[in-house]
């Protein structure tokens, strides 16, 4: 199951990249398609942040992850580079797990 998921998503994502490079630009260059494709990562990443911060299966919970993400926001506001953000969140959560 995991291998099938890995291979199917890889093939699909490759075909998306290849299509852009091989396709005549009439369809993809429509401004509407461009706008939607630009906003798609914003929608999905926002959704994933919430689902991964508060979700456990089908329930919403408030645990160490939320504290980690809160610290990540502070660190992002301080313009820290990406790896620092991830490590700060992980360290916060790890600390809370140990208390």
């Amino acid at each position, binding site marked *: 199951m995991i291998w099938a998921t890995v291979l199917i998503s890889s093939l699909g994502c490759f075909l998306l990249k290849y299509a852009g490079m091989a396709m005549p630009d009439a369809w993809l260059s429509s401004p509407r398609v461009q706008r939607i494709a630009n906003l*798609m990562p914003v929608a999905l990443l926002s959704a994933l942040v919430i689902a991964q911060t508060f979700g456990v299966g089908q329930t919403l919970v408030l645990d160490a992850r939320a504290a980690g993400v809160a610290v*990540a926001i502070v660190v992002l506001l301080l313009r820290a580079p990406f790896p620092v953000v991830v490590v700060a*969140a992980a360290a916060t959560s790890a600390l809370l797990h140990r208390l």
Partner: protein
Amino acid sequence: MNQEVELPDNERRRITRDGVSLAFTVGLYGTAFGAAASSSGLSPWQALALSALLFSGASQFAVVGVGVITSWPLAVTAITGALLLGTRNALYGLRMAPILQVRGLRRVAAAQITIDESTGVAISQEHLGLPAMRHGFWVTGLGVYVFWNSFTLLGALGADALGDPAQFGLDAAVPAAFLGLLWPRLKGRTPWAVGMAAAITVLILLPHAPVGVPVITSALAAVIAGWKNGGAK
């Protein structure tokens, strides 16, 4: 943009340096992906396969972000999320095609390394002409490929050796990673509105809908906002 001007050696070296240092920084983050993959039950080889074959950070996190894949609905959720996040690479390909002008195997290779970073570095060399843009694309794309895959394996093996992922805060590292990817895209009113709408969608649907459905549904926020802005520009 059509000029085939010679690329001076000093500019070539600068582009190489910029591309490689960006590639290394981004590649480091592969460690976080490898660790997240491991905590979602992927073997180090499966994590490496995603980095080598899928090779697009946000899509890869979407696959491992659904948790341990034990049923087909979860698999479909993972695949759909990865594909939706991968749609922007098609637009990058469209942008790069006339610059690279490649066919056959070189086009396959170019397509595989068409990601945020390679396209970004290429486009920022526009004032120097096509050879500079091509050089930026290949150096950055191949550099990220090498570092990203190496650090993925390192992260996956490391996390496997460490044991319980929550103990090391990896449970918070995944949403923080998504947030880090999201942050630079939140520029202007429309992205903020789309982000908030998506977040609220998940909060409302998560307790009621099957796992994965809330995240996929949030894609509608992008479709609606992108559709409606029609008259603006």
